[in-house]
């Protein structure tokens, strides 16, 4: 091992770590606001990557139909949930959100897919297709359980994960796809040859973190999310609709997942079931951050990325073992430090 190799491994670790950081952020966000441990996060990565790859090949991605189906299901669920106080504006808003939006995305996809408009329109369309699935899922699976215990919500999340995994196989097929990156440029820095895509990944992560910081610090919706995270009941008492906060959190989570997918698709071959493991590594990072601290989770994610890349150099056969073992000392340390009171609600 010399300095060159260490640098290359470090670069690889940081690039992968950035993806884990994005996922860790959104896991922390969703957990803080809704107390859901969002296991299906990884599926959004896979959906994003596969949708993006399909658009680049000029095919209509199967996820569009999934979006329409989920939208229709969410519309039904919404109507049932609101059946006792149906009023025209609320119903119209619901239908616009769950039927008109997927319809518009479908039309856009039908028009754009065969034209191969290039990486940026494809990436945006991918976000438009995959992101709304998250709030629909929230309406379908989590909103009716909003007051349930963390464990019940976790079980629901596992259920959603398994359902999305099966749907992924139906809509994308068993084979993997790989996409073209935003940039083919390569920058030589000393012994390193950094692919342009790496800059895109790290850059997007940093930009997104800054945007989230601004969102939470300076906008009303962001402050409402924070208030919900700090104290659900208190937030409701001062007039914040916690179900709306939940939906916003899921929109962000879906968007971050889809974006991670678009960013990672050119680096590796993505399968319908690839997302889970990627999401799990984001989860490790989120746990190290205690599921509450954004900066700690982001730093931990980069650490996970580096541990992964160095262990794949030294003992490739035990790479995953090492990555997931990292969580044990952290949990020990946290449980020794914590007073144990914050777990019970």
């Amino acid at each position, binding site marked *: 091992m010399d300095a060159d190799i260490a640098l290359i491994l470090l670069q690889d670790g940081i690039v992968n770590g950035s993806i884990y950081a994005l996922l860790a952020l959104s896991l922390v966000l969703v957990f803080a606001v809704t107390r859901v441990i969002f296991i299906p996060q990884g599926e959004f990565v896979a959906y994003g990557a596969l949708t993006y790859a399909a658009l680049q090949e000029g095919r209509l991605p199967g996820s569009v139909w999934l979006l329409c189906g989920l939208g229709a299901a969410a519309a039904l669920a919404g109507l049932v949930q609101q059946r006792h106080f149906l009023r025209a504006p609320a119903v119209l808003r619901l239908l616009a959100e769950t039927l008109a939006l997927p319809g518009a995305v479908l039309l856009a996809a039908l028009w754009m897919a065969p034209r191969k408009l290039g990486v940026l329109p494809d990436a945006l369309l991918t976000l438009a297709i995959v992101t709304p699935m998250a709030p629909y899922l929230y309406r379908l699976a989590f909103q009716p359980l909003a007051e349930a215990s963390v464990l019940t919500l976790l079980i629901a999340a596992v259920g959603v994960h398994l359902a999305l995994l099966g749907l992924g196989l139906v809509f994308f097929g068993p084979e993997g796809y790989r996409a073209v990156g935003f940039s083919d440029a390569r920058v030589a820095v000393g012994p390193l040859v950094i692919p342009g895509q790496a800059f895109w990944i790290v850059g997007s992560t940093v930009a997104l973190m800054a945007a989230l910081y601004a969102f939470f610090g300076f906008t009303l919706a962001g402050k409402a999310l924070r208030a919900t995270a700090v104290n659900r009941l208190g937030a409701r008492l001062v007039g914040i609709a916690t179900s709306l906060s939940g939906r916003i959190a899921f929109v962000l989570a879906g968007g971050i997942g889809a974006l991670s997918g678009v960013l990672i698709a050119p680096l590796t071959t993505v399968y319908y079931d690839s997302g889970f493991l990627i999401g799990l590594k984001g989860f490790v990072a989120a746990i190290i951050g205690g599921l509450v601290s954004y900066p700690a989770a982001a730093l931990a994610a980069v650490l996970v990325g580096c541990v992964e890349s160095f262990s794949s150099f030294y003992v*490739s056969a035990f790479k995953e073992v090492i990555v997931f073992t990292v969580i044990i000392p952290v949990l020990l340390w946290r449980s020794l430090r914590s007073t144990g009171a914050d777990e019970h609600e």
Partner: protein
Amino acid sequence: MLGRRLATLLLAATVLGAAVPASAQIKIGVTISTTGPAASLGTPQRNSIALLPTEIAGQKVEYIVLDDGSDTTRAVANARKLIDENNVDALIGSSTTPASLAMIDVAAEKKVPMISLAASSRLIEPMDAQRKWVFKTPQNDSLMADAIADHMAKAGVKTVGFIGFNDAYGDGWLAETQRALAAKGIQLVATERYARNDTSVTGQVLKLMQARPDAVLIAASGTPAALPQKTLHERGYTGKYYQTHGVANADFLRVGGRDVEGTVLPTGPVLVADQLPDTNVIKPVALEYVRRYEAANGPGSVATFGAHAYDAAILLQAAIPVALKKAKPGTPEFRSALRDALEGLSETVLTHGVSNMTPTDHNGFDQRARVMVTIKDGAWKLLP
């Protein structure tokens, strides 16, 4: 729901069957991995089952196809269900080695012949009282590893780096590669492993390149096999690339793109059926399969994995008439006769080779079951 409907149908069939004893029919139970990690193997196999004949030697043949989700437990449950509830005369499956290994116990206990579509030679070796009931259509790893070592020796390769899956597939290949390379006096200088779902193999590739091997062998299956090769390319590795027959489908070419040009790999002749010399007996059988598969599933859709299922049916087609002379379908005597008939098959031409079964070799393939191919201009090309 579906299960209940199936049960009702089966019940109806049994009642009808009892009423009209002359319409005895042969039942073949199939359990393959059409979902889960091995779905890229199971999907073409399921499509191939749809092409199989519904009548053999004047007897109606029914195929009952179940999905085991690439899961060992479910494969065993499926095998039991097919035997206990459907009273099948033979089993085909499963798609992967671990699932097939677990099914051996069931097949042997119930005395039902089973034809596995998985590659490992551990399925039929060492031959014992249990494995007596097991046959398999894919080539043994050892046959393919020898072919690679041969080619390496001829190409003047002295040192080899190995990177393979971190599972039974990689383990099997590592053992076979060590044996085959040692026989040719070629040195294995680096051994690295990775997982199917890895997003990066930079670490492993750097380690491989430090050892400076003349050639790299990638022991992985399907499209994940492209990742190490792409990374090696990216890092400027200039030696030769070898892959295994696990990558022989169109999706590998699609995902690999320019980076897999010039790769050498052993495979069954069906992959390059149209390039085989006309004197090759396998050619017409393989071409017929490719034509029928592509007519049903679209041009360019054929994969060698599906052909293993088709080959299993060719074996049964050859063995069933022999067994019918001894007993009626649906009886233990018939199943035993079918096993004996399968073991006695000789010079059966399959899409993947010519099989000569013996009591100690339940695969029966020889050198004719493998060809060396390379990738040129995004297509498979037969090497002389």
